[in-house]
Each structure stands twice: as C-alpha cells, then as structure tokens.
C-alpha cells in the first residue's frame, strides 16, 4: 500500500447551475461536497447510494468526464482539470454506462471494438490482436460478425466493455451497468467485472444502488447527498442494515434473514453476504 493511489480525489466539490422551477432563477446545486477518496491500483471498489446521492457524479469525476469545481483529482498523478491530460486519463480510466447502446457505434461487433483503436492510429496488426483478446475476455468472440442490434442486452453490455478493454485501461468505471438487464444477465455482468479485476488486474469502480451487487467488492463507499457517509469492507457495511435502510437502500431478503438469525443467537459469519455463502453457513 506504499505505492501512490491510481485515483486520488482531494477535497473536491462539484456544483452545477440549475433553474429553480418556481422562480426561474439559476441556482447552484451541490452534487458533491468535500469528497476525498483514494482508489488503489487493482482494487474493486463499489460506490453505493440511491438515485441522486451523487455516486455517478463522483464516478464521472474519476476520468475527467466532469472536473471538480474545487479541490483536485489526480489519476496516476495527472490532474484531471488540465485539458492536456484528459485524453491520457480517459485512455487509462474507461467507462461503461447503464445503456450500452449509447457507446456502440459501428454496424458489426468487431468493428465497434476496433473503432477507438483506429481513431488512435494504432497499426492494423496490433488492432486485430487487441480486438481478439478483448472479445475473448468478455466471451463474445462467437458474435464477432453480427450487427450489435442482434445482440441481447447482456451481450451488448459485454460489447461495450470490450470496446473499453481494447484500449488496455488500468481502470474501468461501470456506472449502473446492470440497470437495464434481466436478473440473470445482471449476475453475469457483475461476475465478468470481478473476473477482469482478478485475472487482468484491472481496477474496477462499480456504481450501483443494489446491495447484492456490492457483496463481493473489496471496499464499499456509501454516498448520500453528495457526501461519503460509510466506508468499509462489505461485511462491516452490511452489519448496519438499519443505517442502509435509512439511506433508502433496499435490503436483499437473504441478508435480512441472516441478520435476524444472528440476532437470535445463531452464529452466522458476517462475511456471508451472498445467497450461496449464507446457505453454506446455515448448512455447512
């Protein structure tokens, strides 16, 4: 942990002007207030919070999509507010969103992945190699010559991830990547992010409002009204269900059940946070 953090957020504020619906006047809205956070290389971090808590705004400040109103954000030592750094920063820290269609542009899967590489003037042989390995990493090689609209929602999200991976980023920010997917595809995308983290050493920052998607993170940050309100490993965050409920987060029923069983003296490990782990604790 002596190495300097990949992303170093130092006391940032982020405000934007919004029109008051009654008076019609522009007023500053504070989306982030005095946020400091260090993300280490290789970490799997989850930003948790309900809609409007500021988690997406914070995520967008991590790769210069937004820059702070005050304070500063360093990515690998580069200040995101410096225009000259922004291209480098966005290559290092890629981003995927709720709706993969917003970042799919080509008419064929492999062309789509090659797009950003072509724009950067990378030699063709290297493009081919990177496109292939990106498709392998997200298991869509068999779909390489299909038009994206023939893909399912989950497959299109994989395609979006491949497009980012082809740039060989050090970090991927996934902003509610499962929000528009069915429950099975949801689980698959989250496992894919974990796999990229473990096998390829890519730092992951996952934004979500679902506790069940945060259970396997190395560290969770909970946000409310633009501030960091809780931070810790999943086991310690999930130990405080009442506070999470007050932060308008839905508690998954298996987590609730485990907590109630612990309350009546049945010793289930606080580390058991997934359905499988809880079942294993109850019936070893």
């Amino acid at each position: 942990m002596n190495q300097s953090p990949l992303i170093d957020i130092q006391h940032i504020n982020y405000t934007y002007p919004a029109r008051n619906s009654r008076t019609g006047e522009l007023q500053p809205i504070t989306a982030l207030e005095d946020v400091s956070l260090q993300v280490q290389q290789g970490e799997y971090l989850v930003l948790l919070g309900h809609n409007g808590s500021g988690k997406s705004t914070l995520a967008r400040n991590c790769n210069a999509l937004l820059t702070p109103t005050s304070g500063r954000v360093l990515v690998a030592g580069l200040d995101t507010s410096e225009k000259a750094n922004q291209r480098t920063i966005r290559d290092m820290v890629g981003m995927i969103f709720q709706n993969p269609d917003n970042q799919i542009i080509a008419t064929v899967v492999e062309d789509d992945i090659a797009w950003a590489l072509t724009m950067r003037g990378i030699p063709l042989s290297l493009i081919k190699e990177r496109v292939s390995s990106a498709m392998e990493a997200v298991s869509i090689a068999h779909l390489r010559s299909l038009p994206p609209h023939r893909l399912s929602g989950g497959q299109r999200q994989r395609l979006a991830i491949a497009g980012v991976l082809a740039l060989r980023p050090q970090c991927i920010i996934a902003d509610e990547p499962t929000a528009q997917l069915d429950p099975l595809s949801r689980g698959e995308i989250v496992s894919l992010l974990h796999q990229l983290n473990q096998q390829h050493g890519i730092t992951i920052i996952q934004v979500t409002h679902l506790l069940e998607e945060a259970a396997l993170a190395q560290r969770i940050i909970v946000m409310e009204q633009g501030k960091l309100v809780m931070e810790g490993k999943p086991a310690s965050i999930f130990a405080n269900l009442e506070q999470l409920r007050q932060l308008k987060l839905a508690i998954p029923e298996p987590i609730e059940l485990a907590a109630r069983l612990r309350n009546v003296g049945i010793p289930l490990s606080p580390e058991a946070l997934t359905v499988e782990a809880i079942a294993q604790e109850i019936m070893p």
Partner: protein
Amino acid sequence: MKEPIIIIKNLSHIYQTNQSGPLQKAALLDINLEIAQGSCVGIIGITGSGKSTLVQHFNGLLRPTSGTIIVNGIDVKAKDADLALLRQHVGMLFQFPESQLFERTVYADVAFGPQRMKLARHEIRTRVLNALDMVGLPHREFAQRPPFELSGGQMRRVALAGVLAMSPAILVLDEPTVGLDAEGRTEFYSYLQRIKQEKDVTIVLVSHDMAEVATLADWLFVLHDGHMVMQGTPRSIYSQGDALRKWGLAAPPLSELLTLLRKKGLAISRDVFTLDEAFSLLQQSRVLRGSRP
C-alpha cells in the same frame, strides 16, 4: 374462484411480413389462460418471450392470428368488436409511461381520458381528484403543477392516475417500474397494493423481475419464446428455481436461498415463502441449534 374476466383459448399470433417463409415469426403459440375477476396476475418472461405481445391483445391493439380471446364479455377477434368500449374496460400503462404525459398541469393530464369519455364535469373532477389521491399525489399539492417538474417516480404515478381515472375493469401494467430506483419501486408498488385492495379492478402485471411481482400477484404465468411454459401461485413457481433458470429467469433471492438449503438436505416445506416464514422455521431448526452449541 370468481368468473374469469379474460378467457384465452388456443391463441396464436404470427407477425406477417410481406414475404412468406422464414420471415414469418410466431410471437405467441397456442396460449390458453383464464384470469379471474378481481385477481392480480403476473406475466413473466425474458425479453422477447412474447409477454408484451400477449397483453396487447387484451385491449385489441393486436388481434390474434388464430384462437379466441374474450375480455370482459367482448370478443376481441370479432370484426364488429367495439374497441372503443374495450379500451375503456382495459386501462393500459405502457413502459416508461411518463413519456405519454403532455398536458400543462397534472390535473389536465389525468382528466384527458375521462374527458374523452364525455362524462359530466363534476364526475370528471371527482374521478381526477380521487385518482391523484389514490397514487399518493394529494391533489391540493399536485393538481396544478406541471407534470414535467415532478420526479420520475411521481410522473409515472401521474400516468397511472390517468389510467385509473377511466375506472377500468382491468388494469394492465407493462414493466411499470423499469428505470426507477429502489425507493421509487417500493412506492409504486405500495400504491398498486392499495389500488388492489380498495378498487374492484383486475390487475395484470408484466415483468421480467420475479421479486417485483412476488408481493402482489396471486397467480403467475411464465412465457418463453411465445409458449406458456409454467403457471401457478408465486409459492409454487418460486420453489422451482431450476425450471425458472431454464427459461432465463431467476427466482427471488430468498427463494433461491431456500432452494439451496433444501438441496443441502434441510427440511423446508414448499409452503415456506416469506421472510417471516423462513425466519421462524430456521430459528427453531434443530440442525442449526444442534450443530452450534
């Protein structure tokens, strides 16, 4: 069981294209179902399973290629079917219904449907105010506000009020909470629960999310690739996790947990379904108490 309000027999729907042959697509094949008056049913399936196509038959937006569908006494397939009347009986809330709001005030938007029904002014007013109160948007506070200034969840409830103000016998909701956060979803469902209890209305909920319909629906239909593959009470459907996975669906997490525990040999009756039931069973379980002194 009350009289069925919707009766569907051997319904198929084939999308016609100009060419014959492989471009014809069977969206629904030989569907049979009955929906009891006053019940709440869920229609479940992954994207492309045919659930939206099915409910679009309920108000005559689509007509079956073959088979019959009778909705509140109206034969939807009949050439002389009174579709205007049918659509008063069947209120439909589409996906992202907030995109259908268009009036300058919440009141005007909710009043649009009743006005088309040529009701008396005071009747319209009563219906609009009741509908707004019903969905948790007290009319004193909300009636005169522009709908586009409301939150996403509130806009969606304005759209729901617009449908309720028509006093439909059947309320069809197609993925009503897609895109809302946990709070918005819980709120939407709490008002729907209230409508179910207080209004004499049959509710049809279309969803790909099992956990969502679990609290409301008395009966579930599972569609896959245009076929009806399962039906039953939520209890019985959710206890068949493996079958659901085959259709690309996941049982709610608690049901998954109970299924896993059953597989590991813990005796849990299929009747155990809710969090409270699971808790009271497990806290008394000898296995749990016994193995951990």
